[in-house]
């Protein structure tokens, strides 16, 4: 037998192959489509530049996510299931960089970020979301970029979590029995418009009777920094993002990386300097993930800057004002607003798209707080944040095509079942946690909002439970199978 070389260096780097001509053409067609959308919409009305900003940042996110295989489900699952830390490391790199850019953007007065209320709901939502994403094989952003790679299973996840959110936020009747009386009384006391029927539906009372009573502050505000530079760089970035990220990285190094690294470098062990070398080796083990984390971190920070700049330029505080001004009032909330976070976000705009479709089928979904009072459900063609999600899929497609990695993959019934089942859990988790792995974790922890770490804690716990259950199930069945072989 011919001895083969041990090839363990840069194992994440794909073989250098030239883009196939047909894939290059397809990539340019996708890119051309989005360029055409941008230019033609701008030609119709210059205010569509606000939509295009979302679109092109979505495109960049898609390219970065696909390039680095950036996925929160992968990060948690690979740690607990197979002891591989590379994705978790990449995410922590992105957290550190995004937090630094965000701090700069905040100091410049261009931040669009608003902190989420701090409460136990984040842990619960993250837990449900985490279990779901392990079973689907992708988080909310991961499922979008995998859709761009041609995975129909990932598309099923996106559709499942989108429609689940619609049904979940509108669920009333029997679900009202699950609402604590204190939430109902608190919701009534808010004197909300009758159109949103705040006492009908579990989610409405969850929002109005519980969430709105919680306080929302960044760490910079909590610590009482009066200087905005100290609040942004010390409170929000250093204390809320960088130090926790470094602690997590150190924990990952000690638990999952150190033993393997030192085993291969036993002869040269020089104490702390060897530990530092090992830590750096872990950070740079997967260049693709590290590069993707770097680009994502910087792009996500710049995104906020651009959106706030455009809001200032166009004289608006919400895209609903643009739509109303352009004569597209359908689907706006009763406050004439639409969902418009001004930064990287995933799940809410997908729920809006599903809600629009459900409404077209004759169901009324605007009688609740989530759509009727806060986010609206505009036509998907006129939903600026949904442009970002669609462009994210497009950007991932372009990157996959350029690397000859695009492949239309139909799921087996089994994979499809898991995708839908996991997507349902992700949809429920996203609504309970007020966001997904991006909106409730990535964008929050990097902007000084400690609620993001609570969601991350729940998501990690959910991922752990999901992996352990799956592992137990497979091992149990493998043991039975081996017994069947009479081993």
């Amino acid at each position, binding site marked *: 037998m011919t001895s083969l070389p041990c090839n363990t260096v840069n194992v994440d780097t794909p073989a250098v192959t030239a883009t196939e001509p047909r894939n290059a053409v397809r990539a340019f067609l996708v890119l051309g489509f989005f360029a055409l959308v941008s230019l033609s919409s701008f030609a119709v009305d210059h205010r569509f530049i606000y939509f295009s900003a979302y679109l092109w940042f979505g495109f960049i996110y898609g390219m970065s996510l696909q390039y680095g295989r950036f996925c929160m489900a992968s990060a948690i699952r*690979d740690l607990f299931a197979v002891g591989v830390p590379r994705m978790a490391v990449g995410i922590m790199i992105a957290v550190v960089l995004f937090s630094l850019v965000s701090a700069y953007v905040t100091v410049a007065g261009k931040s669009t970020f608003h902190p989420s209320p701090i409460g136990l709901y984040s842990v619960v939502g993250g837990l449900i979301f985490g279990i779901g994403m392990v079973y689907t094989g992708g988080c909310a952003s991961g499922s979008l970029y995998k859709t761009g790679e041609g995975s129909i299973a990932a598309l099923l996840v996106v559709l499942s979590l989108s429609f689940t959110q619609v049904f979940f936020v509108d669920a009333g009747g029997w679900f009202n029995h699950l609402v604590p009386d204190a939430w109902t009384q608190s919701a009534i006391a808010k004197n909300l418009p009758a159109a949103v029927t705040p006492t009908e539906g579990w989610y409405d009372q969850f929002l109005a009777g519980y969430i709105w009573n919680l306080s929302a502050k960044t760490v910079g505000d909590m610590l009482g920094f009066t200087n905005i530079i100290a609040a942004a760089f010390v409170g929000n970035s250093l204390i809320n993002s960088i130090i926790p990220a470094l602690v997590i990285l150190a924990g990952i190094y000690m638990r999952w990386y150190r033993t393997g690294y030192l085993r291969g470098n036993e002869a040269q062990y020089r104490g702390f300097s060897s530990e530092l070398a090992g830590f750096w080796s872990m950070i740079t083990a997967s260049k693709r993930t590290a590069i993707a984390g770097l680009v994502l971190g910087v792009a996500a920070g710049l995104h906020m800057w651009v959106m706030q700049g455009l809001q200032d330029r166009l004289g608006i505080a919400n895209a609903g004002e643009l739509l109303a001004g352009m004569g597209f009032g359908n689907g706006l909330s009763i406050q004439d607003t639409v969902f418009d976070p001004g930064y990287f976000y995933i799940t809410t705009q997908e729920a809006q798209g599903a809600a629009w479709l459900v409404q077209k089928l004759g169901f009324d979904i605007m009688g609740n707080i989530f759509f009727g009072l806060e986010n609206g459900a505009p036509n998907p063609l006129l939903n600026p944040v949904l442009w970002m999600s669609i462009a994210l899929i497009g950007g991932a497609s372009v990157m996959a095509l350029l690397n000859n990695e695009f492949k239309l993959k139909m799921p087996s019934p089994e994979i499809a079942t*898991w995708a839908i089942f996991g997507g349902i859990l992700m949809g429920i988790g996203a609504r309970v946690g007020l966001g997904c792995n991006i909106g409730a974790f990535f964008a929050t922890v990097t902007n000084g909002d400690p609620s993001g770490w609570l969601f991350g804690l729940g998501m990690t716990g959910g991922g752990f439970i999901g992996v352990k259950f799956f592992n137990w199930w497979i091992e149990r069945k493998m043991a039975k199978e081996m017994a069947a072989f009479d081993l």
Partner: protein
Amino acid sequence: MLLHEIFKPIGLAWVGIRQRLARAGRASVKQVDVPGYGTLWVDESLNFVGDNCLRTNLLTKLVLDKAISGTVFEISSDNLSAIETIPFMLPNCNCEHLVTLHEETCQRIYVRKRESRTPSSSGKAGSAPRERQQQSDQPNFRGNRE
């Protein structure tokens, strides 16, 4: 009834896993031409084409953990995330990555189980790999082409 509905997908998942295990057990010992390197004898083939990353990674780990020293595996997958994760998890399974071949429909990772380590150096005492000659009666890990 509700419990049945909840666990139905898990049952479906197990059907798929069992099929793959059976498939992996059948496909053993073949010769592969590796461009630029030469000919490689493969003892076991694991086909995860169409699977998601969790199942690909978990089943690969379980099989590699239980494999005997010297066994060469061919792991086929079209899941890009799993393909890139597998080489990183090999040291924990006491395996070495030989080469990854990029094909049009999937990628094939070739892996060899290293020589046994002492229980203390391989983590859990019960997870130390078995020697091939001691396990020659095991159908899934029987390859012997030295």
